[in-house]
């Protein structure tokens, strides 16, 4: 009897509280990589509202995942062979993100269980890399831990468990820094509102990172017409060598 009553109360509670909506925004939707680019600081912010557009009046945890374009990679592992460290083993992955940053309002483990975290890729340990070929789970864990460690050192993967601040149960904001070594392409920022271990709302927004002007020109030139690009490089080197000779002869 008591149990049935509890169930009823819970049911009322659940139906009464309809899922809120998330309104995300990013400080800039386009990042231009040009001369003097030293990285960018993105501000990801937004609001959590009820479908009626009023204050939700409940505590939500917010997780923001910013993911760069994915690429296929070979991850090589060094081992000591005959006294020197050489690349001995390798694993191939079809979709390793070139950038992956997670910011949350609390440590992920205290917000959701492992299963939910894995489904939504909430955090570096749950990165889905789609291995090519089959590896046993132990090897796969070792390789992805290796990749995460490597990318973290380069500042391309990061996790900040206190990176999101939620104010007045309505507004949230997170700051994520992109280093200058980011790849160009489309970055997706996914925001999740989580309540009692359940993802109740999510929303996606996009950021374009692209090379502009001279930098774009050089990258395209090098990629499309290698021969002419090479000639240009040679011409510049010879001209600068001659010029320096002339200049110093005057001094």
């Amino acid at each position, binding site marked *: 009897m008591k149990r049935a009553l509890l169930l009823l109360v819970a049911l009322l509670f659940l139906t009464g509280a309809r899922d809120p909506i998330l309104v995300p925004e990013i400080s800039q939707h386009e990042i231009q990589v040009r001369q*003097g680019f030293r990285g960018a600081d993105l501000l990801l912010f937004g609001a959590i509202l009820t479908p009626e557009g009023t204050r939700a009046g409940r505590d939500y945890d917010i997780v923001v995942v910013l993911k760069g374009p994915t690429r296929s*990679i070979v991850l090589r592992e060094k081992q000591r062979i005959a006294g020197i460290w050489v*690349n001995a083993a390798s694993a191939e992955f079809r979709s390793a993100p070139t950038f992956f940053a997670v910011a949350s309002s609390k440590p992920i483990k205290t917000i959701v269980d492992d299963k939910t975290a894995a489904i939504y890729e909430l955090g570096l340990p749950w990165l889905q890399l789609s291995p090519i070929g089959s590896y046993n789970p132990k090897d796969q864990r070792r390789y992805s831990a290796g*990749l995460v460690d490597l990318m973290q050192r380069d500042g391309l993967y990061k996790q900040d468990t206190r990176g999101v601040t939620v104010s007045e149960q309505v507004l949230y904001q997170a700051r994520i820094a992109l280093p200058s070594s980011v790849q160009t392409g489309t970055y997706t920022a996914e925001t999740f509102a989580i309540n009692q271990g359940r993802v109740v709302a999510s929303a996606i927004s996009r950021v374009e990172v692209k090379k502009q002007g*001279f*930098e774009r020109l050089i990258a395209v030139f090098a990629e499309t017409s290698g021969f002419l690009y090479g000639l240009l490089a040679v011409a510049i080197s010879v001209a600068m060598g001659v010029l320096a000779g002339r200049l110093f002869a005057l001094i």
Partner: protein
Amino acid sequence: MDVYLPIANLSVNGLVIVALGALTGILSGMFGVGGGFLTTPLMIFYGIPPTVAAASAASQVTGASVSGVFAHSRRGGVDYQMGGVMVAGGIVGTLIGAGLFRLLQELGQIDVVINLLYVLLLGGIGSVMARESWQALQAQKAGLPLPARKRRHHPMVASLPLRWRFYRSGLYISPLAPLLLGVFTGILTMLMGIGGGFVLVPAMLYILGMSANVVVGTSLFQILFVTMATTMMHSMTTRAVDIVLAVLLLIGSVSGAQIGAQLAQKLPAERLRFVLAGIVLVIAMLMALGLGWRPDEIYTVSPL
């Protein structure tokens, strides 16, 4: 001063790169041998991807050798016939080198091979240089004349078929010998981004037995054309030549080469050579230790 490198995809301190180029240039101006052996490893250490570093380093060697070639040819210090044969070999070498580069990249062993080559080359050349300059210094101290060098080519060279006369070098030998030497340095240039002067000069003196007054000029002549070929080859195959990085290096290296040439006339050459030998040996030793120590990071990523 932050400069964004469009091919390496990262931003670097431009002044550091210019200083690196200047170091290379000064060494090349002072000793007539390229300092490329320092640039590539230092750039990699600074965080530039190894492929981009090796591909872009060759162009600054081109710049640093141009004025040297002019200066030497004005006073008849270039054997064009010998240089031509070596350039032909060098171009073949860059082709072979490009194939090797791709193969090693696919196998994932390019970094280890580059490091091993550095250890072997620098170790060998450093010891030869150290021994020689030490002998020269001792002789100077004792007031004795330098022990006369036997200028004769290696018996292996003499056994090669076909013989040409190389007037300026004072040789009557098979063109296959300089051709093979050219091939060898072409491969090294492609793999390591160095000019190869470190290998060429001693090889021309002790293996081919060329007369000393054309050695430096001819080696610079060969380096000039082979580094040009290397830049072309990298632009067409690895597409890793970063023109912005190359220009920064060039600014340093072309002015460094001029400063180095002037310094060389003022400073005691033998003592400097001894110091340089010491630097080379220390670098070789550090790199050898680096191969044996557990690296800080045992994983590397490359695109598939």
